[in-house]
């Protein structure tokens, strides 16, 4: 493991000796050698932890006798008790609803903007496209924690330019870090950080549209707007599906931004999002079994959503293919 690139090489000298049949054997075995580091890492850092989480989720700690000393607690089988507790936990449900509300802002706005900017980048009549592309992609290089930190300061009433602007026209400034605006404030951080990446994915798909298609549209007298709506958008639908898919997954896992904003406001609890609750249960509450059950539930929801969505997307693809 300390030298993952070495594994296949170790077998090489033995291979070179033989004739044709030895070469065929080595060609047959080689891919497994090349995949050995991947397999080892997967087993150790994906499969094992997942298995361990499943195991922990059906165990609990029981107090023995007075519960004193090292023998005072033992781990026993808990069945589905941890899951029952997780699914009926009102804080977890509230967290899920908060994330749903947050996602309802982030996903449509971010992808809408990403598509809009990608279409602008693909339009020759727009100047400064190179500059726009680099600049809008720039936030991708800024860690989520630092993005949250920068915006967090910009939301503080004593720093925010919005406060200055509103006060100048005599309006009361809203507290961006409380109540409903807080959702917008958090969503804005994710939108700022994620639009550029999605824009690039969509823009790449736009550039893959054959030139003849554009030519045909132009000859048919399509305006740029019509070309965008009727040709470009339908043709990049697969990459929109892809970006949608990844945005949903990222949204379900929101953790960094609300965690970073916490020092700046009292309105963010330590269990604001479900993942924050997992962290809280595991490391502050010390209840790793509850944390494991909650984690498994979140993983299942993610998987069900992902595969349900993929099925839907591929079913649509197939219908279209059949229609052709």
């Amino acid at each position, binding site marked *: 493991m300390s030298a993952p690139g070495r594994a296949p090489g170790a077998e*090489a000298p033995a291979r070179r000796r033989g004739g044709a049949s030895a070469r065929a054997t080595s060609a047959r075995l080689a891919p497994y050698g090349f995949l050995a580091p991947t397999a080892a*890492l997967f087993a150790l850092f994906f499969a094992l932890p997942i298995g361990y989480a499943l195991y922990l989720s059906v165990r609990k700690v029981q107090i023995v006798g007075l519960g004193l000393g090292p023998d005072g607690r033992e781990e026993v089988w808990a069945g589905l008790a941890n899951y029952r507790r997780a699914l009926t936990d009102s804080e977890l449900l509230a967290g899920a609803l908060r994330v749903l509300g947050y996602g309802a802002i982030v996903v449509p706005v971010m992808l809408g903007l990403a598509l809009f900017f990608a279409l602008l980048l693909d339009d020759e009549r727009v100047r400064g496209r190179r500059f726009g592309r680099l*600049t809008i992609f*720039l936030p991708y290089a800024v860690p989520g924690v*630092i993005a949250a*930190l920068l915006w967090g300061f910009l939301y503080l009433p004593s720093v925010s330019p919005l406060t200055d602007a509103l006060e100048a026209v005599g309006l009361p400034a809203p507290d961006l870090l409380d109540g409903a605006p807080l959702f917008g404030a958090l969503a804005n951080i994710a939108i700022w950080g994620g639009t550029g990446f999605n824009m690039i994915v969509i823009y790449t798909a736009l550039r*893959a549209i054959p030139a003849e298609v554009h030519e045909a549209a132009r000859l048919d007298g399509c305006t740029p707007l019509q070309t965008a709506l009727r040709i470009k958008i339908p043709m990049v639908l697969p990459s929109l599906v892809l970006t949608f898919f990844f945005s949903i997954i990222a949204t379900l896992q929101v*953790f960094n931004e609300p965690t970073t904003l916490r020092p700046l406001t009292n309105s963010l609890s330590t269990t604001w999002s479900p993942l924050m609750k997992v962290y809280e249960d595991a490391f502050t509450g010390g209840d790793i079994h509850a944390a494991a059950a909650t*984690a498994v539930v979140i993983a299942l929801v993610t998987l069900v959503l992902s595969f349900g969505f993929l099925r839907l997307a591929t079913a649509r693809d197939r219908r279209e293919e059949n229609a052709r």
Partner: protein
Amino acid sequence: MSTASPLNTVDAASPANARPASEGGGARRPRRFAPLPTAALLLGALYCLLPVAWVAIAATKAGDELFSTFTFAPGSGLWENVSDLHGYRDGIYWRWMVNSALYAGLGALLSCAVSALGGYALALYRFPGRETIFNVLLAGVLMPPVILAVPQYLLLAEVDLTDSRLAVLLPVLLSPYGIYLARIYAAAAVPADVVEAARMDGSGEWRIFRSIALPMMLPGLVTVFLFQFVAIWNNFLLPYIMLSDDEKFPLTLGLFTLLNQGSTTPALYTLVITGALLAVLPLIALFLLVQRFWSLDLLSGAVKS
């Protein structure tokens, strides 16, 4: 690409039907200037620059100027802020930066090597279990990191590896997305008949990979490297869970703890802001430097033919 992967929707943007960037211009329709869309694009660019511009300005403000002067009015304390940051706990900030560079640099390099090997095997060999392996790897993308991180922490605690540099390095070495990209590059850049010819000439499999396939895959691997570098540099959750000794913190975690302490000691806020600026600058510089060599298109799996 005839994979049954959930991600092969990207293939719409794959090489065969891509028109070269250079001719994407005037041939299509007469060049005119569209002021409104241009303004919209610039507005978007402005929005993306806003926090970066702010932090650059705010880092020049002295402690008492931060909350009193206009948001975008430069202050007078840049040098003082930097030297305060430098002096803070014997320059621990620089240690964080070195840690971040180490985790991201070494992690991305090793991860890139693992991805190259895996992607090459998946692209150029036909063997039993190929699609299964690929699909299981892709399912790994869907696993929320915290689901993995909590048991990873507990397991590493069993072998006394928590709060060590290895604890933040080892779990990031396997990147399903990196393998996915490497597979696409290998399939597009390494012709199967070249590999076959080398095999006929008696080259060993490892030699074929090292001296023939690897150089061909290199441009794509640069993207895998940069992608992983950014992902590890930006990582917060894993070090947050694994590390407690702040000598080993990466920048993200260090700044977070600094911000956390700032809620009781507001004097630290200027340090946080200056630190944030200095943390953002290297990556922005890196981006501007490599964007010449790094086709952003590759990020989404498109390959130029």
